[in-house]
């Protein structure tokens, strides 16, 4: 815009003009920013938000019966739960049962009803085999095929399995169930496993995190205080484990720690022990392997924070009369809190989801939640349980994170 043109035109109020220009400049910048993050946002939505959403949904999803036997389900919803359902409902059931042979519906319904009671798949098969083409009285016909159809509990259980949303998987993941009258109760003591699995998962992840912190903090401090030449060399050693795959490292621990492995042999050879120690396929092995794998994730954030803390703080504290140890704890350590927070959260959350390592180097009593998730997905095809276990783990993690965040924020007073 030339100066002449500006001078010739009656001037708009300058600030309005300015605002417009600012807005236009800002809009362009905003578009650029959106354009830059769009691919990542899209990627995250497709591979992260949607799968997690669908997993959360699967933990309460209960549409198997409704999708295969919509009329039966509708009829059962009207039923008051005493005696037997109406004749029309049973007729619909018979018709839908016959149709369910096509398209795999029968398997789906059988599997779902088996979660209520193991007899259902067989019962459905038997009934289907004996089902006549037509009947005057479906109630009577069904009871004749199998007396189970004449029992109120059978229909109650089917009724209970039919609403489109259920909390049974989530309850089961917490060793809870609905009683006969719909109240929540603990399951029989000998069947309870998940509470202890969750507890065990937390204990292992927490223990690994603490060990990593105890081992990683001094090393990170050393790395941050050594001259760059030496610390770079050591840093390569810290990162060395990343060069081999997790599976290889885990397998290597089995070889090292087994009864006639290197560790036991050298301990016996040096006369410290007489009989080999059980170091693998138990909790010790799990800790060894997991700490080894996760240690760099503790060291790196600690190192990056410590690198930024000037040594003059400790010198200042010492010059003010503090003993070097006091100076370290009162002045240096509090400044590393953001690194400790990042490192522990990172290691803890990664450890929570560990599956391969405990599966390989742990015993039956060392399997973590992920093992059961994998079991339900791969072996029994029970997506509801897998999703429910996963969701509860996610919820627990978020809860712990919130508590932790609160705690750390209260202590972490460094604002940059």
């Amino acid at each position: 815009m030339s100066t002449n043109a500006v001078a010739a035109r009656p001037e708009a109020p300058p600030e309005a003009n300015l605002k417009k220009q600012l807005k236009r400049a800002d809009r362009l910048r905003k578009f650029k920013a959106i354009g830059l993050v769009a691919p990542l946002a899209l990627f995250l939505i497709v591979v992260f938000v949607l799968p997690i959403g669908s997993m959360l949904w699967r933990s309460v999803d209960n549409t198997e019966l409704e999708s295969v036997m919509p009329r039966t389900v509708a009829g059962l919803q009207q039923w008051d739960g005493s005696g037997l359902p109406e004749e029309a409902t049973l007729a619909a059931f018979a018709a839908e049962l016959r149709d369910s042979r096509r398209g795999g519906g029968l398997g789906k319904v059988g599997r779902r009803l088996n979660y209520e009671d193991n007899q259902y798949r067989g019962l459905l098969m038997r009934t289907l085999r004996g089902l006549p083409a037509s009947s005057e009285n479906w109630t009577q016909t069904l009871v004749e095929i199998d007396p189970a159809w004449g029992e109120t509990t059978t229909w109650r259980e089917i009724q209970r399995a039919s609403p489109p949303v259920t909390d049974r998987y989530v309850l089961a993941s917490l060793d809870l169930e609905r009683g006969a009258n719909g109240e929540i109760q603990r399951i029989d003591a000998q069947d309870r496993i998940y509470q202890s699995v969750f507890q065990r998962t937390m204990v292992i992840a927490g223990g690994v995190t603490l060990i990593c912190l105890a081992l990683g903090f001094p090393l990170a401090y050393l790395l941050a205080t050594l001259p760059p030449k030496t610390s770079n060399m050591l840093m390569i050693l810290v990162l060395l484990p990343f060069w081999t795959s997790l599976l290889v490292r885990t397998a290597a621990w089995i070889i090292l720690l087994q009864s006639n492995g290197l560790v036991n042999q050298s301990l016996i050879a040096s006369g410290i022990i007489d009989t080999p120690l059980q170091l693998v396929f138990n909790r010790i092995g799990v800790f060894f392997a997991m700490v080894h794998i996760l240690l760099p994730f503790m060291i790196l954030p600690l190192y990056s924070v410590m690198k930024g803390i000037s040594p003059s703080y400790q010198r200042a504290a010492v010059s003010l009369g503090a003993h070097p140890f006091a100076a370290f704890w009162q002045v240096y350590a509090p400044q590393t809190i953001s690194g400790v927070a990042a490192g522990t959260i990172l290691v803890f959350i990664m450890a929570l989801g560990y599956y391969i390592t405990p599966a390989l180097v742990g015993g039956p009593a060392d399997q973590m939640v992920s093992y059961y998730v994998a079991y339900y997905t791969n072996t029994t095809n029970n997506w509801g349980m897998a999703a429910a276990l996963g969701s509860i783990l996610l919820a627990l993690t978020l809860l712990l994170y919130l508590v932790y965040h609160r705690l750390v924020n209260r202590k972490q007073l460094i604002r940059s």
Partner: protein
Amino acid sequence: MLTNTSLSSSDHSTPLVRFDAVQKTYDGENLVVKDLNLSIHKGEFVTLLGPSGSGKTTCLMMLAGFEVPTSGDIFLESQRLNSVPPHKRNFGMVFQNYALFPHMTVEENIRYPLKTRRLPAAEIERKVSDILDMIQLREFAKRRPTQLSGGQQQRVALARSLVFEPQLILMDEPLGALDKQLRERMQLEIKHLHQQLGLTVVFVTHDQSEALTMSDRVAVFNDGVIQQIDTPTNLYEFPANAFVAQFIGENNTLPGRVESVQGHDCRVSFGEGFSTGALLGPNLAQGDATRLSIRPERVKLNGAATQLPNRLQGKVHEFIYLGDHLRVRCELAGNDDFVARVPVDDFSSQLQPGDIVELGWRNEDVRALNAS
């Protein structure tokens, strides 16, 4: 080197701090500090001045206890300090970037040295409160250091090093991070504090004007050796050698030879057939090579030079206008960086670059210094 002579003559009482033949090397080959002898008396403001790598900070760190002398001793009054750990020395220290603890408030920072000394709570609060008033930051007591301006942080660092009433304050380039105006104000503030509280201060800087402004005595370091230790006036007026002359203030240097000596005066020839009267510096005799040192503000131009005993022809290269004065860069006796500093009022505007001018000075404005 006149390290010891100028010291012991001025004061006969026991010095507070004494460096005795201190040497320091980091690699076993090069001495960072060579045979250092230095006494600091109670109530003195002593500045260690020098370019980077001259050993001044190493000296301060040895005094603070963060470095150990390779040989020699450091005494505090009659106590040998070498084996006293830094946290037991009871020196207040102000660091280059203040080193205020970022996770503590201003108040907590100031309280820290008192708490480590386990003083009674009431006394701690009284002292913290007093010193907050003194540095006028009471309303900032609950803030964190990062929420303060550079000057305020500097004052907090000062307060923290003063609050436990140490017998010695060490300052390691404490004003380096401040802008020029603030730096000059803080220089005066520190100087006034020193006078009011009767502090003993050892101050390290590479800024010569800072050293001249604040100090009772300045020790000029170069290459691990104290080149001269003296009052600011004497350093400027009577530099002991060419390095000091060059480092303190502006200076014109001309290489020459001592022709004749008469007491403190001498005659020096330089360039091609030039000669001037000069004050004889230390360690010089007839026939020695010398470097003449002339301050730019003592060089007079044309009319102002007519009455002066030493007058020479120079050629003007350029003028640099600096508001209150003008720098005239000339070529004189083969040195084309010879500067005269002329008050703007005295300056004749007819002068052009390329003109020949007459430059003049008095005998006593020239020092003949050791050429090495």
